[in-house]
């Protein structure tokens, strides 16, 4: 067995142990507990709130704009991480380049803000 697979073996054993332990606990509880079901007890538990409606709920369209903005700015960060790890090496040149990059991004955010995209209506 290769070195790589052996290190995965640890993970495997850990996983099996975890499943076995959880399974054992649930089985013991099932054997020991009294079982007197009523309709009230059988409905799904939603943190004390009455469960209403189906499991397929549409989310608000308002989230969508925020999600889109988030995706864009989140992904742009991919350029900043490699730059940040070698910040000293790049020196002033790198700093100025990144400043321009972030300036343009901020301009985009500023535009979105001024156009009222960030307002929750």
């Amino acid at each position, binding site marked *: 067995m290769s070195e790589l697979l052996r290190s995965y073996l640890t993970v495997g054993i850990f996983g099996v142990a975890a499943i076995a332990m959880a399974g054992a606990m649930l089985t013991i509880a099932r054997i020991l507990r009294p079982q007197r079901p009523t309709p009230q007890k059988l409905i799904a538990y939603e943190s004390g709130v009455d469960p209403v409606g189906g499991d397929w709920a549409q989310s608000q369209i308002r989230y969508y704009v925020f999600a889109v903005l988030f995706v864009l700015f989140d992904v*742009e960060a991919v350029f900043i991480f*490699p730059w940040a790890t070698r910040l000293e090496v790049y020196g002033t040149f790198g700093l100025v380049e990144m400043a321009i990059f972030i300036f343009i991004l901020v301009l985009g955010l500023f535009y979105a803000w001024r156009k009222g995209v960030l307002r929750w209506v």
Partner: protein
Amino acid sequence: MDVTTGWYLVLGALLFVIGGTGLLIRRNPLVMLMCVELMLNGVNLSLVAFAQRLDDIGGQTVVFFVLVVAAAEVVVGLGLVVAILRRRPGTTADDLSTLRG
């Protein structure tokens, strides 16, 4: 068993083909967007695999650019899909036939 870069190339090609097929046969605009992403990720996997095989950092850098471009593209695509769905809920690509074609 030894996992060589060739396996990743095959996986990348498979992802690309699955995405391409999905794009051609699925009719839900959102699923079509997902298929585009799948194709691009197949390409990304190939790029990383090639970079590994060639021992060259270039291929991995390309992936960054592809990721960002893909995000920008999908955001525009989502905007278009939402604009169409808002007017006509439940639209599939077959319904987009006001223009004959």
